[in-house]
């Protein structure tokens, strides 16, 4: 199984923020969720991968080839959906398409029309009159109409109602069906990832905190609830993070058996991705 995207040692400094040694790999046939709180570095990383921002150091390989030396060829195979404001609003969708389509050698007008129909978008409508959901659908149409093998999306689902979100996720899974594709999307809406993600990469303060299979994470970590009195200096270390209230504690741990030995009368549950993400983010502090 080859890797669709390999990022190694990315570094980039801004005045108040920097990316530190960001490295991760996207295997083929996987939907990878790039998660983190706002300002963690998701958009910066994606902009660097797409060549919009310049890195201080590091390498980016797509389909096994170096991005810098094969930029045009590789970008041809990448479909992009970015956060707001990426169109010329005064144009109609067809006009915008007429500018973007020639950039891609694999452009298919047939696919374009099919997606526009599927999303019930009127190509002669002005972009400024579209709702947020329709803009995202249009961006997705453009991204999916040129035979791309890798979809890179920055917060595609934020600002969308649950129905549109679930349509989008369905499209992502449909996209993966033929095989040999990859999807990389950043989000802070972790419930979407619960449904479709295969791999999860967490970034925080410009550093990668983990890069794991989603099911493994959900298998290995547990949400433990118990009496505050059961906590002592020793068993606190078994938890990634603990929150206490007057009525008890809730903690996230991957050492369940040791916790079970150390305290009785606990409630054990499967965590959500949100629990795991927050535990890693808070646990570090």
């Amino acid at each position, binding site marked *: 199984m080859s890797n669709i995207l390999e990022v190694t040692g990315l570094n980039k400094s801004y005045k108040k923020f920097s990316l530190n040694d960001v490295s991760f790999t996207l295997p083929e046939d996987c939907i990878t969720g790039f998660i983190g709180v706002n300002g963690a570095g998701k958009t910066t990383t994606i902009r660097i991968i797409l060549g919009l921002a310049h890195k201080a150091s590091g390498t980016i390989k797509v389909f096994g080839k170096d991005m810098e030396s094969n930029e045009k060829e590789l970008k*041809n195979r990448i479909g992009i959906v970015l956060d707001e404001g990426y169109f010329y609003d005064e144009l109609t969708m067809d*006009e915008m398409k007429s500018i973007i389509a020639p950039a891609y050698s694999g452009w298919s007008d047939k696919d374009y029309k099919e997606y526009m129909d599927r999303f019930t978008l009127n190509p002669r409508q002005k972009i400024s009159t579209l709702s947020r959901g329709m803009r995202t659908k249009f961006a997705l149409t453009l991204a999916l109409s040129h035979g791309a093998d890798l979809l890179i999306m920055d917060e595609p689902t934020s600002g969308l109602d649950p129905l549109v979100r679930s349509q989008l996720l369905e499209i992502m899974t449909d996209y993966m069906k033929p095989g040999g594709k990859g999807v990389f999307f950043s989000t802070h809406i972790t419930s979407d990832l619960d449904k479709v993600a295969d791999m999860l990469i967490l970034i925080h303060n410009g550093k990668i905190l983990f890069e794991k299979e989603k099911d493994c994470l959900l298998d290995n970590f547990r949400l433990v609830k118990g009496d505050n009195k059961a906590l002592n200096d020793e068993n606190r270390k078994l938890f990634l993070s603990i929150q206490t209230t007057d009525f008890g504690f809730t903690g996230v741990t991957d050492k369940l058996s040791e916790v079970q030995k150390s305290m009785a009368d606990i409630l054990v549950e499967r965590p959500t991705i949100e629990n795991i993400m927050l535990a890693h983010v808070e646990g570090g502090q």
Partner: protein
Amino acid sequence: MLLHLVKKDILIAKKYVLVIMLFIIAFPLFVTVVAPQIEGLISFLYIVALGEIVLLQVISQEEAKYPKAAALLCASSYPRSTFVKAKYTFFLLLFAYCYIAYTLVMLVVNRAGVLDLTAILTVLLVGIIIYGIYIPVEFKFGAVKARFIFTIAILALALGPMLFTDLFANITIDFSALATIPASIKNIVLALASIAVFGISIMASTKIYLNKDL
């Protein structure tokens, strides 16, 4: 690819482009009829200068309204160098249109107004020099700051002779020598100069834009 980006510039400023295109035809016509004593060269220079500068400003303004759109295009497989070249191509295309429009109008209204090659090349060189300085400045500092810098520069240049009249009074350049140079040599020199300025400007703009974070 290149032409599609030029098309993009025209699309986003559709209405303005149309108005200017009409103006370029109307103005020489108007001048010839109303004030025939004004040399054709002046009116040609005027439409080129106005057309290029105004359209450039308008397009940059529209572009600046939607900065992420350019980012999206650069993230697609349009190379950044093509973006740069498109701006210069637009200049050349507009110049060609001005020349054709002017010449056609003159052929109809006032045969004497048709300009010779030397005059055309002179206007071209002047245009390229102005444009060739403005574009890299705009790529580097953005449309708003570039316009600001240029306005200040033009005002300063305009004031220069007034403020330093003494200095300028003592300078007497003998232009009569120029008249004896054969036209073909003048043309070649003008053409080469235009190409040189053009080339340097493109290289500068490309370097600037390639290194910019979008």
